[in-house]
């Protein structure tokens, strides 16, 4: 497969962004590769119902 891309003129007036978070990227330019990965863990056992106890304290 031969993949041909022609990028013509880009002229943007304004970009408004509220927030860029959690290893995100705002790129104004060219790149060859981008690899993104995200793991978000909030399992049922992460919902603790109980009294005031410390959660997994450090050593």
């Amino acid at each position, binding site marked *: *497969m*031969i*993949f*041909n*891309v*022609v*990028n*013509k*003129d*880009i*002229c*943007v*007036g*304004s*970009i*408004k*962004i*509220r*927030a*860029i*978070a*959690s*290893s*995100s*990227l*705002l*790129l*104004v*330019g*060219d*790149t*060859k*590769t*981008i*690899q*993104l*990965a*995200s*793991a*978000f*863990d*909030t399992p049922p056992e*992460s*919902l*603790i*119902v*109980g*009294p*005031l106890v*410390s*959660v*997994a*304290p*450090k050593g």
Partner: protein
Amino acid sequence: MFQRRISHVNRLNVDTLIFSSTIQLGDTKFIDSTNYTFALQREQELFYGNEGTFNDPVFTEDILFAPLDESFALNTTHTSPFIHIDFIDIGGVTASSIIHIGSTQDVRMQAKIKNIRHLFAERERRRQPR
């Protein structure tokens, strides 16, 4: 070397930049950004200061990335050597994020987040409608 354009931004406004975030002006070769977050939400404002470890599997197990050795016939032609943006307005940049004005080659970004909610009492169950 692949073809890269010149990024031209007239004005960049960023209000807040925190937690190892970066504003990069100019070209780069390789970006590798990682962010681990342990978030503990409580019903009441209570902060011990010594809680949380990064021993959880969500942090210790590696996320697999595909190797970058795939041969791929890509022909890119740029009719204009510029990318023009007049104004960029950003409220906040956080948690190992990057604003990159310029070209790069390889980017790898990862985020691992553990979220725990701590409630102090069982809620009364809502009645099911008939």
